[in-house]
């Protein structure tokens, strides 16, 4: 058996690339150079080895009798049983503890930390005066006690009072021209962004749901369907904005819940 010319060419190439990689390392070249040479040496060695494999087979075909296997119903039944049992154990290991904590977990999802009287602060922890929220201003706000910013974050929006849906004022008892909604998209709970002042809309950067901040947080387009939960706000004695309670509904994606009841 004589290996073909290409096998020798690959082998010499691989040897050269290995030497080059070694020299690059020895000369103290930058690690990117060395690694690139090592990669090249690996590729060339791989090609050389594969080529040798081909040459060693020498164009001859090896043969092997397949062992005839009976129906093996006994063993198959056992395998199916084992596979099913394994899947069952894994499913139980996840679903039983999950089921046991559904109640507490649901409670934790619903309670974002907003309570009556907690002041709204911006991302620097600074309380916000009602007077600052002029038409066209937008803040991301959190409860002052710093609880759970990932779940409690809200958008605080100032707008001309006549642009805001009248029912919002009645519902929240909010100061004129100020509304606050959960900042989490009701689709996959990504934080909303891309506020457009003219239309008073925000867009979710993840899957492009559009919400109307002037119209009660309703969904205008995209894959979400639940309106943004509203944060009821008021003004304390110093003129700072405070929460009047928790969000009007569970924030973010939500969960499977009975239609009648919580």
């Amino acid at each position, binding site marked *: 058996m004589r290996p073909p010319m290409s096998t020798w060419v690959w082998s010499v190439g691989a040897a050269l690339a290995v030497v080059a990689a070694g020299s690059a390392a020895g000369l103290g070249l930058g690690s990117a150079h060395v690694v690139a040479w090592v990669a090249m040496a690996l590729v060339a060695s*791989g090609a050389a080895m594969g080529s040798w*494999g081909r040459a060693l087979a020498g164009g001859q075909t090896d043969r092997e009798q*397949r062992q005839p296997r009976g129906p093996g119903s006994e063993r198959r039944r056992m395998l199916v049983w084992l596979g099913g049992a394994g899947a069952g154990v894994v499913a139980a290991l996840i679903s039983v503890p999950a089921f046991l904590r559904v109640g507490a977990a649901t409670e*934790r999802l619903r309670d974002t930390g907003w309570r009556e009287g907690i002041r709204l602060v911006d991302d620097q922890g600074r309380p916000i005066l009602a007077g600052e929220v002029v038409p066209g201003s937008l803040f991301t706000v959190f409860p002052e006690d710093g609880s759970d910013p990932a779940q409690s974050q809200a958008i605080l929006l100032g707008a001309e009072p006549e642009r805001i849906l009248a029912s919002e004022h009645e519902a929240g008892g909010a100061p004129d021209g100020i509304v606050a909604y959960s900042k989490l998209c*009701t689709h996959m709970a990504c934080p909303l962004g891309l506020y457009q002042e003219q239309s008073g809309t925000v867009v979710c950067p993840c899957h492009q749901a559009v919400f109307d901040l002037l119209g009660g947080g309703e969904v205008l387009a995209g*894959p979400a369907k639940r309106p943004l939960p509203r944060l009821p706000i008021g003004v304390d004695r110093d003129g700072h904005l405070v929460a009047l309670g928790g969000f009007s509904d569970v924030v973010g994606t939500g969960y499977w819940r*009975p239609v009648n009841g919580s």
Partner: protein
Amino acid sequence: MTSVVQRGRAAAEKAFRKVFPGHWSFLLGEIAMFSFFVLVATGLYLSLFYDASAEIVPYDGSYAQLAGVSVSQAFQSVMDITFERPLGSVVRQTHHWAALVFVAALVLHAARVFFTGAFRRPRRLNWMIGVTLMGLAMVTGFFGLVLPHDLLGGTSARIGHAFAVSVPVIGPGVADLLFAGPFGNPQMLHRMWMLHVVILPIVIGLFLVAHLALVWVQTHTMFGGNGRTEQVVEGSAAWPAYLFKAGGLLALVSGVLVGFGALVQIAPVWIHGPFDPASTTVPAQPDWYLGWVEGALRIFPAVDLTVMGWAIPSPFIAGVAFPVAVFAVLYAWPLAEAKLTGDTASHHILDRPRDRPVRTATGAAGLAALTVLLMAGSHDWQGFLLGASIEVMTIAYRIALVVVPATVGLVTYSVCRTLIAEEAAADSQRNPVGRSRRP
């Protein structure tokens, strides 16, 4: 004593004579396996330096643009791997590239097995093991995206949390288990870390061993023709030819992955910046193998669903029911096909795709649908480039999701039919007795 040695020797000699049929498409599974080896090797190195703590610290590494910025320990440690550790950046990028190639090779390997009917008895169980491996790879990759705790990883975690809470009835409990409480709990990274680095790789390793053991015991399939029969495997013996070729492929795959890791930037956490619970990256896309779910989440219509008195969260259909259905179809296909065609016999000779027009057309249509969804996964960015609004892009992709798979399926079917007819015509010309070219 000698008898043990002799028996070992005999077993080894028998193993060396094991025959492996050769065809380029049989290399796809090997490429997947070798990518997994690279993933384990690079992952071990990364695990030496990664710190799964979400505690906030000021960044103090050598990347000047983030100096003093509040970041999590986890993010700090990934920056440290990237900028301070010897070869850290190369190893991290190689790891990420290897993950992309791993899943790509798995998908192509599964497509090869599907279109050639290699999943038929006696390999139905091994097909299911393979489908499981593909799902595990995607899930493991997802947790890997979360670990750097950069803005993209944190957004991925958010979306993962939304998947979990959308699970019927026990959703909040599932999310609570996976994320150690409501989203934002610092313990979250420990759970993801344990899953990504220990539990899931071990499970993948076990399924991989089972997959290979079954290939060994059941012998490999091969294409027919040239007088090949179901009873005899033809190819190269394990030693030396096959092992040389496989070893060569291992070196080749590692070389290409290391080359990409060294030269092509991927997952630049220093550009994404640290996770901030009130921000999202724009545009935000996951790695390619999750893109089909991302696309479904974007273009599936929002419907107000109530099932048996339960109000269902909006991502449920696209994010939970749809992926589960896709995997259910994959698991069930061998059994369903055997039932529908009545062919429950064992097969070791592969089908040529054209000889099974219905299966081939169905598979092609399925892949086309998943590709449309994958592309829809970045439709905001495409709309931006094309100057089209997001609503227009969504409607266009909804139409494409129906039209493209239907067209691909019909064209594939008629191409298969034409090829068969042409072969039959050529055969009857060459051999007027009417003997078919294929059994």
